[in-house]
């Protein structure tokens, strides 16, 4: 078509095509991205059951419960980030395509976040309300989770790349990713706690945003290196 050989697809165009493809694949299998969401609801339901359901107590616990549940369910979702594509050879094709692999994997991370991170963020106000958070706190909680889930998707992609094709990948993935996610958890939970107390939460938000920027620049490079190793 108009003298375009398949090799002359620009990196931006390839990233966009990849996003469309992954979104379409994800939409055809809603079970995969709904499961982490359901898991998020279940875990947050367990917290009041395991402690006592007084609203004042729950309000104190809400940031911790929200963020630990979000962290665990994003971890659950990470397993499927590269699994299918690693098994059917798509990742190898991407690596051999001559386009920057880090860019393509960043596109994949974007889709992964859209399918697993974003539903979580949208579900969070519901859970926060159930934990007794005031209405006024909802925008800040949304913003914190929005930033945090992006960072978790990006950082987690490194772990998913490293455990690509391993037999005991699941538990190992948790062991690799959770320590790296400590800063996100701290700042996210802190921002949420400040928001629920109706105090300005700008400071931890800025830190979260800084982590997002840093991981958006560095994590794709590490992910690409990890995936290349995993494909050997």
């Amino acid at each position, binding site marked *: 078509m108009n003298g375009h050989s398949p090799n002359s697809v620009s990196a931006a165009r390839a990233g966009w095509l990849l996003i469309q493809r992954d979104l379409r694949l994800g939409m055809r299998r809603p079970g995969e991205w709904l499961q982490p969401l359901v898991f998020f609801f279940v875990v947050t339901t367990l917290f009041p059951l395991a402690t006592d359901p007084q609203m004042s107590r729950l309000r104190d616990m809400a940031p911790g419960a929200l963020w630990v549940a979000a962290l665990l369910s994003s971890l659950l979702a990470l397993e499927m980030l590269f699994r299918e594509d690693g098994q059917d050879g798509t990742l190898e094709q991407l690596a051999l395509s001559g386009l920057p692999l880090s860019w393509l994997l960043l596109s994949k991370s974007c889709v992964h976040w859209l399918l697993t991170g974003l539903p979580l963020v949208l579900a969070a106000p519901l859970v926060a309300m159930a934990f007794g958070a005031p209405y006024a706190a909802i925008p800040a909680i949304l913003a914190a989770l929005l930033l945090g889930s992006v960072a978790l998707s990006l950082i987690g992609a490194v772990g998913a790349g*490293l455990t690509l094709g391993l037999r005991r990948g699941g538990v190992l993935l948790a062991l*690799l990713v959770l*320590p*790296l996610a400590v800063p996100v958890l*701290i700042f996210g939970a802190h921002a949420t706690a400040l928001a629920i107390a109706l105090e300005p939460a700008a400071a931890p938000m800025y*830190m979260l945003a800084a982590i997002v920027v840093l991981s958006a620049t560095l994590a794709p490079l590490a992910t690409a290196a990890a995936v290349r*190793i995993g494909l050997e």
Partner: protein
Amino acid sequence: MIPWLSWLAAICGAAGLIGALGLAPPDYQQGEGYRIIFVHVPAAVLSTVAYAVMATAAGVGLIWRMNVAHAVAASCASIGAWFTALALVTGSLWGRPMWGTYWEWDPRLTSELVLLFLYLGYMGLRSAIDDTARADRASAVLALVGVINLPIIHYSVDWWNSLHQGHTLLKFGKASMPPSMLTPLLLMMLAFLLYFGAIVLTRARGAVLRRERQARWIGEIVGVTAP
């Protein structure tokens, strides 16, 4: 090199121990109990030094594809993990009489614990991959990612607790130590460092021998001709 390091480590360790347990005066606040810092502080320092060495070796191995560097990085991990565990255990033993609790969610303790998890993750990843070359490079990537993250984790943990509550914990100031305590402490640090060097070299030698067990030059050294 290994005997040199080990002997120097033994001498420094002996001198440090004599100074630490015999010559240094009891602390006016903590009595004799403070003497555990002569093990605790070097272990804590070495836990980070080991990570730095491991990450450097991993980087060298990844960039120049040196097998020896990978072997060194792999040997650092378990030793570093042990130093971290030792620092945590001695710290909590010290904390029981001094702070009245084995564990306090102090930033330093917490970041040391996260460091231990990083080590365990590194070792877990390495043991999960059967192919040595692949394990080398994957764990090297992880070590480098960890090195970028370590300062962030450290500062976030610092920040996390300093905003939560004001701490009334005892802190060691740099210059608030008389020479009779400082000298043994430095000697012990040196001893730990030399010991670390000796052990890493020993383990790395073992690792290299194991990797290259099919190679001809090993057969020549050992005096066994390969079939």
